[in-house]
């Protein structure tokens, strides 16, 4: 299939590129589409990072006022965890680490006193296991132990991220549909204003495809120009936002980055938009031509 026309055929249509509103509408659509796609990709990345880091981890707290019993149960739990098939790694959080964690809240002296601080064990689970599997064995080894499942704690946040991700995807699809509609309307308008020329070419033996190629070429060029403009605007916004977010330095926000393939995907959107416009135009023109002999 010949998508682009040779020079000779291209001279059959007046070249009125970037005339009319279509390139500008497509630029706006592409701008919004790239922003939506960029946020969707960043959110997906953040959700994945969060899942990878935290979902396979759990913390076990042995909450017992009596320091000796607490210590005994913590050791028993650690020994059990080391043998448990669902556990990849289990590590006692040292008293110094706990002190460092609590210091901002309780002040430096807290650990020296008699304040009962729970014993903590960091557990990394093997993939495909969740922390509930540990419960029966743990109850036997250390009745005072409580499981703190990170995946469960994060569930509302990951749910929100997933919802936002799908929302972004839906926006991209909706804007692609609106872009298609704009192209179809433009192609119909062009058909009407070039009706006489089309009739003549038709009677001189031009095929539907030859005529459709004249339109799809012009519309593809316009759509690509508009798409590049929209992409440039959107990339500028994304980069500026990125700089601002980096300045915040927050860890959660920091995970809102784009991988190289994310950037590649964004850059491919104008090309995809051009192809979409081209095929929408082609289809519109051919459908209209089918109605004449």
């Amino acid at each position, binding site marked *: 299939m010949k998508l682009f026309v040779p*020079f*000779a*055929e291209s*001279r*059959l249509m*007046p070249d009125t590129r970037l005339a009319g509103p279509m390139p500008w509408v497509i630029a706006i659509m592409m701008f919004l589409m790239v922003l939506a796609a960029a946020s969707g990709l960043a959110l997906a990345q953040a959700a994945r990072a969060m899942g990878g880091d935290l979902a396979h981890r759990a913390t076990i707290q042995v909450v017992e006022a009596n320091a000796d019993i607490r210590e005994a149960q913590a050791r028993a739990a650690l020994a059990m965890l080391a043998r448990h098939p669902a556990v990849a790694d289990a590590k006692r959080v040292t008293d110094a680490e706990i002190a460092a964690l609590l210091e901002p809240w309780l002040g430096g002296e807290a650990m020296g006193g008699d304040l009962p601080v729970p014993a903590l064990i960091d557990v990394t689970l093997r993939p495909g296991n969740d922390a509930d599997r540990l419960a029966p064995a743990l109850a036997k080894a250390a009745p005072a132990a409580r499981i703190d499942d990170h995946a469960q704690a994060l569930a509302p946040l990951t749910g929100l991220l997933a919802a936002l991700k799908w929302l972004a995807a839906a926006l991209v699809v909706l804007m692609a549909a609106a872009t298609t509609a704009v192209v179809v309307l433009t192609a119909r308008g062009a058909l009407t204003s070039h009706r*006489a*020329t089309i*009739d*003549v*070419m*038709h*009677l*001189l*033996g*031009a*095929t539907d495809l*030859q005529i459709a190629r004249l339109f799809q070429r012009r519309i593809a060029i316009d759509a690509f120009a508009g798409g590049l403009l929209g992409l440039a605007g959107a990339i500028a916004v994304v980069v500026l936002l990125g700089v601002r977010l980096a300045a915040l330095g927050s860890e959660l926000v920091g995970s809102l980055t784009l991988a190289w393939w994310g950037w590649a995907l964004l850059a491919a959107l104008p090309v995809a938009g051009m192809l979409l416009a081209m095929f929408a135009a082609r289809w519109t023109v051919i459908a209209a031509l*089918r109605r004449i*002999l």
Partner: protein
Amino acid sequence: MGGIVQFDNVGLRYGTGAETLSDISFTLAPGTFHILTGPSGAGKTSLLKLLYLAQRPSRGLIRLFGEDIVTMPRARLPGFRRRIGVVFQDFRLVPYLSAYDNVALPLRVAGVSEKELDGPVREMLAWVGLANRATARPATLSGGEQQRVAIARAVIGRPELLVADEPTGNVDPEMAGRLIHLFDALNKLGTTIVVATHDIHLIGRVAHAQMMRLDRGRIADPTGALRHPPSRPAA
């Protein structure tokens, strides 16, 4: 016998009105020259439209180049149209193309390269006396000049069948003579020609032309010569 054009009981009705053409039957032998006359509104343009495949008949059989074009699938029609040259009654030049590009149009549609088409296009423009107006847009040409561009466009591809609707309506008698000479030359090269005209002078110009007369949508054929024509008289 196998003519290049064969009509058999053809009728044409626009919309739901009365038939514009009724019971049209004739055969055109290859290489013949026909002049179609008849009063205004008789249906000459309608008949030519059937010939250049702008319209399908409401009834009857039409064979073109030996094939039934009434039932032919749409996709095959462009190939047939390229074998037919047409001079439209209203010229139908493409307004934003120069005279040169208008004449080159059929060759470009047929995929002829720019290198190959330049010579023939210039030669054809010279033939119709427009060599120095090659870059002019149709709007800046006189009616007669536009008509000559339309004729040049119709004959540039050396069609097997040339259909011309009032091709000399807007030119002076001398230019009309030149154009008829052009048609005649094309006819001698083997093109079958059908010219619809009111022009009495034209009618006498081509010695071997066969007359066809349309009146109120019917073709007058008292001798039956149109249905079963003699083969082309020796020139």
